[in-house]
């Protein structure tokens, strides 16, 4: 399996186009690769603004951000593991576990928001640590280790309540009633809106997304840690022979991923106001989709935080626009897949042509 998409240069398909207009064509191709995807995004926005009534406008924009906030945060985590050449299939279940834990802490243990948040973050980081140790110490392949972790967590998160959702007033397995409530401060993470120009415009979860997105972007692009993580993803052995502590960085990547997933889970809990066992099933696939779409943004052809954020937005805009146009849910899936495939074909075939035709 290769997430690595650097086009293979040896199997060039040898396009024998004449050399003269090359310079001009090359820059055109360059531009298409770099801005093609963003162009598509813009095109979608324009299209929906014209044809979907109510799509254009600040509230709708905020709504799109909000609808992708949780998947976006998870996708940023998975991006970090993709950067070191790994993959984290457990993020969805870490998020739902974190949601259940948050609910459990507040509703059953009647803890404060602060304790709850610390517990959730610690759990996410701890699961990431276990994933990382499994992968670097016992050398279980990443997909396999995190798949096992996924199954494990999906079961584990349901054991304390015997599979029931957690809500104030629920009956516990021992027959008593849970009296705790979600702390208002905790709920605000998912529900409070901040005034900006318009009243109650920006939800806190969107701020989380934007801040985390910027932090991950800075971390990956501008710090030496991020640079070394990319080096590990490209050639682990070479990176280790430059003195990089490959194991530590890999473990760190999984811990980032786990921690961000737990943040996502807390936002989910705050939005739902309960620990719901049926929620969050699509988080994994949507987050992976966003992170992978990110490959196509700005012609990066590798995992990157900006691309991931754009990937998440892309999916959000598409679904929002289609909903506004009253498209049934199944056509939304179809169109999502179709546009995704077309966008990818466009980007990757162009960059393959650029890299391969000589």
């Amino acid at each position, binding site marked *: 399996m290769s997430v690595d998409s650097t086009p293979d240069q040896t199997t060039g398909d040898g396009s*024998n186009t004449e*050399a003269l207009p090359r310079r001009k064509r090359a820059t055109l191709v360059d531009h298409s690769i770099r801005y093609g995807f963003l162009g598509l995004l813009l095109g979608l926005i324009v299209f929906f603004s014209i044809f979907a009534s109510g799509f254009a406008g600040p509230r709708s924009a905020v709504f799109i951000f909000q609808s992708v906030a949780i998947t976006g945060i998870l996708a940023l985590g998975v991006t970090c593991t993709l950067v070191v050449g790994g993959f984290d299939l457990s993020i969805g279940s870490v998020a739902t576990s974190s949601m259940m834990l948050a609910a459990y802490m507040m509703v059953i243990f009647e803890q404060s928001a602060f304790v709850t948040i610390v517990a959730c973050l610690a759990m996410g980081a701890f699961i990431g640590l276990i994933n990382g140790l499994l992968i670097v110490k016992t050398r279980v392949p990443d997909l396999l280790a995190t798949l096992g972790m996924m199954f494990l967590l999906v079961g584990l998160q349901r054991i304390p309540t015997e599979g029931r959702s957690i809500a104030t007033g629920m009956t516990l397995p021992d027959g008593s009633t849970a009296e705790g409530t979600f702390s208002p401060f905790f709920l605000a993470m998912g529900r409070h809106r901040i005034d900006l120009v318009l009243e109650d415009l920006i939800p806190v979860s969107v701020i989380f997304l934007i801040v985390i997105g910027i932090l991950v972007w800075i971390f990956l692009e501008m*710090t*030496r840690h991020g640079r070394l993580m*990319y080096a590990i993803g490209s050639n682990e052995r070479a990176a280790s*022979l*430059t003195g990089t502590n490959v194991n530590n960085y890999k473990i760190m990547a999984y811990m980032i991923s786990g921690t961000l997933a737990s943040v996502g889970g807390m936002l989910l809990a705050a939005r739902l106001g309960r620990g719901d066992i049926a929620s969050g099933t699509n988080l994994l696939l949507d987050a992976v989709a966003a992170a992978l779409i990110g490959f196509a943004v700005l012609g990066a052809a590798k995992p990157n935080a900006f691309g991931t954020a754009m990937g998440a937005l892309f999916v959000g805009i598409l679904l929002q626009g289609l909903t506004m146009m009253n498209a049934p849910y199944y056509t939304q899936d179809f169109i999502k897949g179709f546009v995704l495939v077309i966008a990818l074909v466009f980007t990757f075939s162009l960059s393959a042509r650029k890299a391969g*035709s000589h």
Partner: protein
Amino acid sequence: MSTLSCRISAIDKAFGENRVLCKLSLDLPAGTVTALMGANGAGKSTLVKILSGVHARDGGSIELLGAPFAPATPSQAIRAGVVTVHQNINDGVIPDLDVASNLMIDQLAERQYGFMIKRARLLAEARRVAARMGLDDIDVRTPVSELGVADRQLIAIARAMAHEPKLLILDEPTSSLSAAEAERLFALIETLKAHGVAILYISHRMSDIRRIADRVVSMRDGEISGVFEGPEIDYEGAVQAMLGHRMTEVDITIPPAGQPVVGLRDVRLKADSPAFSLDLGDKEIVVVTGLLGSGKTALAQALFGMASPYAGTITLDGKPFAPKSPGDAVRRGVFMSPKDRASNAVIQDFDLARNMTVPFLSRYGRLAFIDRRKERRTAQDMIDALSIVCQSEADGIGTLSGGNQQKVMLGRWLAQPSRLLILDEPFQGVDIRARRDIGRKIRETARDRATLVLVAELDEAFEIADRIVVFHDHAAAAEFRNENIDVNAVLAAVTGSPADARGKSRQAA
């Protein structure tokens, strides 16, 4: 001897802005070894890739045995009888398959082979092919991933030889072989030559070229700059044609011994190898040479924290030195540029500058942030110092020629001061002039550190060493001061008792 096997006429090739081959024309007669010489980045491998169907040419024509030849894929080239051993060894073997499948994979790729694998026959044929290359001591069922780089190279060569090619192209086939293996390759080349195969041989090693070339073609900046043939080949002229100027002689003045920097005391690299001691002094350049598997790499690994020696102690500046990881070693000022750059050094996704700065990122910029400008400046300095052929410091590393990639890997470690600099096969694929440049650069910067260079090729040792240590059976067996040196004595020390050495080397691998 006179029949023409392949005629290359007015070939053009450009990568974007970069015109690599300009109206290049070359004839390759049958039954002849044509050695192609050229500086790093001259376009040799590009020519090879055009001949072998990897790249498409922009213009010009090729005739093979009188018929037009324009392979669109590697398999078309192979079917037409043009068989290539590529410069990058990892392009020649499939690590997860066993040796037998690797040797026979071309046959497996042929439709005529049939549907099912005939295992017994496959193994038997593989053994036969392996034996021809002198690989009979390898079990053909071993996965290639368990073999070292030299064996991999031999396997790639053996496979190509087994093909009964019309034109055989060898792109730096000996870059990771020592004299003994190389000699077996030369013997095979002579056999093929006698069968009328045209051979295009690319190498930076003058000793190889002297040994087997029937004619020498020099190449400069994508054009043929001289063809030298006849009974007495003008090697000097060929080098001059390739470089555009005369080669200067290297002249080594051994500096007075400085303070000892690294000391190895009664070190045993393996449980069953003898103990040895070795001191590396300040300003001193010590070259360790020896056969394949003689333990050179094991020594480097012990010093660089990749493995701990079986017994004995190592000191650095008088203090005990037992690094647990390369990171540890780097922090103590011990740097190593590993051999086999493709798997051990090159970070394919990075551009040239980023490849160079990986080990010392913390020194570029404040806190954890990288100062891009500073990084670029360092890279440009190194590009100038090592005369790396490239468009800019933002070139993808994969677009550089092999030798220039090697220079980048060296530049990576020369950019910062160290206490001990270990260079494992630093000249792999580097052209003669660059070798001299690098040698000079190493000698210039050798102050305030000890330098340990591991090479299999003696010529290279003589060019750079103050002192030459010969390794045998994972221990220092002999030592020479590089002054009025007796080449034969060194050779004898290296070879030891030849029959024995080979067996031992397999065991070590």
